[in-house]
């Protein structure tokens, strides 16, 4: 059962991944990231993604703070934050977030507060969505590892 469970989990994971790719939430960079993961760093992807969420959370808070008041909005700072966010997003392959970041950057270059705010909302939404999906994915991954472990550990032992 457990072995079957692992296989099912793997299939689910693949389906979820495929869905995310299909939706354009993730791109091939994420797969490259997964390829970087090997025995020397078994939790590499999780580690990177955690850093990413930590950093992004900060960035989003900063952006939200910057855009809280129309009068005190500093568009250059927004640009800096956005660059940071965009860089890390493209590194992990969060494609849709990168796209929204580009839109937000365009809005901030035009100093359009309303558009910035709109983009930020979309960005937050995308971020939440990605976070939820990836959480799901990692949970499945963990379960799969556990399932696989349950299956194979006794043999190894």
């Amino acid at each position, binding site marked *: 059962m457990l072995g079957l469970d692992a296989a099912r989990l793997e299939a689910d994971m693949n389906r979820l991944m495929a869905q995310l790719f299909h939706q354009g939430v993730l791109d091939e*960079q994420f797969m490259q990231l997964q390829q970087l993961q090997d025995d020397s760093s078994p939790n*590499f992807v999780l580690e990177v993604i955690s850093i990413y969420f930590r950093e992004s959370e900060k960035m989003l808070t900063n952006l939200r703070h910057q855009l809280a008041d129309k009068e005190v909005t500093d568009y250059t700072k927004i640009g800096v934050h956005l660059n940071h966010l965009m860089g890390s997003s*493209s590194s992990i392959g969060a494609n849709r977030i990168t796209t929204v970041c580009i839109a937000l950057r365009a809005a901030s270059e035009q100093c359009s507060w309303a558009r910035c705010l709109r983009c930020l909302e979309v960005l937050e939404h995308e971020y939440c969505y990605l976070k939820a999906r990836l959480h799901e994915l990692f949970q499945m991954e963990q379960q799969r590892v556990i399932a696989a472990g349950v299956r194979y550990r006794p043999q190894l032992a």
Partner: protein
Amino acid sequence: MGGQNRGLGSSNGGECEGCRRLKARFLVLCVLSGFVGSIGVFWGLGSYGCRGRDLWEERAQVLVEQSNLSKNQLQALVLLLSSSERTFAQCMEKSRASHDTYRAEGGSLSCIREAICFEGKRRRGQQDCVRDEIVRVGHCAVQNEHILVNPVPSLPKNEYMIDTSQQNFVSSPVQNDITLLKAKKLINTAKEHQKLLSKILWWILLGLLVLFGLGELSKSSYKQNHQQKHLQLQNSKSGGKWMKKILYMGVFLGVLVSVWIFVSMNANIIERRTETLANMCDERARMLQDQFNVSMNHVHAMAILISTFHHGKNPSAIDQKTFAEYTARTAFERPLTSGVAYALKVLHSQRELFEQQHGWKIKKMETEDHSPVQDDYNPEKLNPSPIQDEYAPVIFSQETVSHIVSIDMMSGKEDHDNILRARSTGKGVLTSPFKLLKSNHLGVVLTFAVYNSDLPPNAIPQERIEATVGFKNEPPLPWTAITTSIGVAVIVLLVGHIFYAALNRIEKVEDDYREMRELKVRAEAADVAKSQFLATVSHEIRTPMNGVLGMLQMLLDTELDATQQDFAVTAQQSGKALITLINEVLDQAKIESGRLELEAVPFDVRDVLDNVLSLFSDKSQVKGIELAVYVSDQVPEVLIGDPGRFRQILTNLIGNSVKFTEEGHIFVSVHLVGEVKISNNITSPISHENAEVRTNCRDKSYNTLSGFQVVDRRRNLENFRMFKSTTEPSDSVNLLVTVEDTGVGIPEDAQSRIFTPFMQADSSTSRTYGGTGIGLSISKCLVDLMGGEIGFVSKPGVGSTFFFTAVFTEGKKNSGDMKRYHFDATLSDFWGMRALVVDGRRVRAEISKYHLQRLGIQADIATDPKAALSAIFEASSLSGTSKLDMVLVDKEAWGEGSGLAFPSHLTDLRRNGSTIKPRQSTPKLFLLATSLSLTEIDELKSAGYIDCIRKPLRLSMMAVCLRKALGVGIKRQQVRGQPLALQSLLKEKQILVVDDNAVNRRVAAAALKKYGAIVTCVASGKEAIVMLQPRHKFDACFMDVQMPEMDGFEATRQIRSCEKKINELIEREVSMDNGDVTHWHTPILAMTADVIQATHDECLRCGMDGYVSKPFEEEQLYSAVARFFESDAVDPTF
């Protein structure tokens, strides 16, 4: 429009402003000159008019003085003369009314008063006696009243001599002189008028000249007033309207002026006509006066005659016949009278007697019927005169007035008055002009009293004077005035039209200009947008393209069957081509917009060529074409220029050649222009342009690299500018690069458009070869930028040769920061070695020799097997430095496979010959081959070759190969296959990753770790500087470009300056103790998501060695890293 153009081309705006300003000035000055001109005309005509008026006054004065005429009279006279008969009569009335003396004198017109007076004086004596007579006759008349009744005509007491005469205008002779004077003055004034007109013309001309002068002045002063004009420019619109208003006003004024000219000139003409007329009248009047005087005298004489012969004699000596004959014969004496008649005073009491005596009734003067006298006129039909106190029937008359015989003169009102007046005064009396009896003519009747013995008077109609007929003519139109004024009006209108048109034109041009400016701004904006779009799009396209390529790469790593593999490979190649294309389009756009700047950095041209060659080595090996490069030893080692762009040109040309060549060779040679110029006619070993056919033992082959025919490029080279000029600047290095291939060639008709962007020789959709055709046009632009020329010779089916020149400057050797694609620190390993190149083809052998020489190996050439063998044996017998270390044999030295067979000759010879001792060291044999099959590789070792050096020959590759074979240095050779190669390159390397982004840092580190590198991460540029202080352990550094606080560029700059200091220190130390030379130059690679060339250029400018895109791309990473680590790459299989 000012708002928009202020920032842009102020010079353009300025010119326009200048024009407008000029125009405005011109217009204003024109209007001014128009005013001045009109004032001049006004003044001239005014003075003329004044003169006329003065003359008039003067003349009037003279007239008044001379003839005591009042101005009114004169005017009346003038009016009279120029008007019709009716007006004439009225004037007569007027002038009579104005002169009291008229009646008293009973004379004629006032103007002849003097003359009449004079006449009166002259005849005073006579008149006195006549008066006496009248008095006496009057007395007698009372007594002889009964006698009158008698038919005897000698008894009448009163006789009337009635004479009708035309009005006379008498003027004194003095007046004649005055008239002459006046005429002269008139002529003078006319002359002055002409002068004035010409003066006005000159004024206008002068005004125009002044205008142009001012225009020039304004042009020159424009620059000084530039600022002001800016402001004025903004008001140009309103200025135009204002100017138009002025223009309309000016035209209106001009028309007014012309109308005024017409009026004044017309008045002037009328005045002159009046004067002329007056003169004519004067003359006529004088004449008439004379004639009148004569007539008067004669009538007087006739009166005496009648009184003497009619009344003095009884019976009368005169009857009607006699009278008529006499008067007819003496008519010439009375030039102004049409006839004379004599009327006898008959009292009523005497009427019957009188009627009986004469046999006719006294008839009444008919006043109603004034029709002219007809042929059938019969006085008998007239009504008899009504009963009156006295009658004055005409008894004698001249033939011309015979119709009035028997008519009672007293029955006419005028005649009645006249007779009474004449009787009382005893002088001739004139009536006012009236219609004369039966003639319809206007005339006056002169009545002369004949006292007692005088002959009967008569009333005679008077002819009009011919002269008046002339006066009756309508005055001619004042043509001068009309033409002048119309001329002025036309000129004014024309000038107005010209200015109007000019203003309109200017306005239109301004509008167009404004429009153009707007369009220009929009076009510029569009251009900027285009650039931004290109930059963005290239980035945005690259990202997904990287995705596609990455996926494909991964796909290729999986298990695929042959078809799938093929599809995937095709897809990957297409993707790569697309990315290249995007970069090319970007380049083209950049070159076209002129934003491309060439850098000037020291570089090694041989190194660049090696690098370019390495790009195409795979392709050429697959195709089996020989790819070779030769750089003349006269070309300096270090040149200063733009290696990147030089490389790009070469890549384009060689890429084309590789693409279009299926068999044969591609040969790249670099010479100095001067060198080629000198040796143009000499067949140097390497310049094999003389396609001389060499008869080989087996087949015909050309003396070229691969034996294929090539095109002759010499003639075309002569057209090059550099070849024509004789003098060369000493510090510049003119390179001639030739890329020769034996490809398909370019069709004749396509050769003209080969350098046009996006044009390919075969532009049909079904063409065999892909590509955009942009490469050559980019190359041409780049060559132009480098101050050179590009050209080609091509013959379809034979091949093409592209050649270009470029100007560089010679650089100093050993300059620290020279850009290199690899480091050749270990090249000294081969110093002093000797090699023999065995090759049937001289050209190929020379190329091999060139590469060996670059490694420091002395090389000899043997072109045929025997010479080679003898050379080998000769060398092997020697020892020491002259010992032959290696023999390089071309695989196709004397034809297919002959190279492989060469060692067998050697072994044969060894076996047979006793001259060689077996223990003698034999030189190592190397085979030079473009491609080798697996069986050939097996054969290789058995044949006796140590190794095979794959062509195209490159320095680094040769060095690796030779090292391995000869056991010098670290003898390991790299193996193709990039992930492995990358691993081999990066294994155990200390690498520093600088990135502020934690995620990126982590990913980059992981990626590099995957290739075996030992990675250290720092988060900021400052930390990186600290880490990279010399005497550090790092082999390379990957630096993010965009970082807060200190970006990658700045950090790199600081690191480089730091290294420079250390290097200087080390150099000093080294010169002291001659130790190990360490040159600190940590390779720094930029990590950037931006792939635009600008970023790349910026990277190189601040001292970075290259750049990799983020996220890492395996191939790019390899090519970037390979430059630094290739020379000491390790072979994992070794």
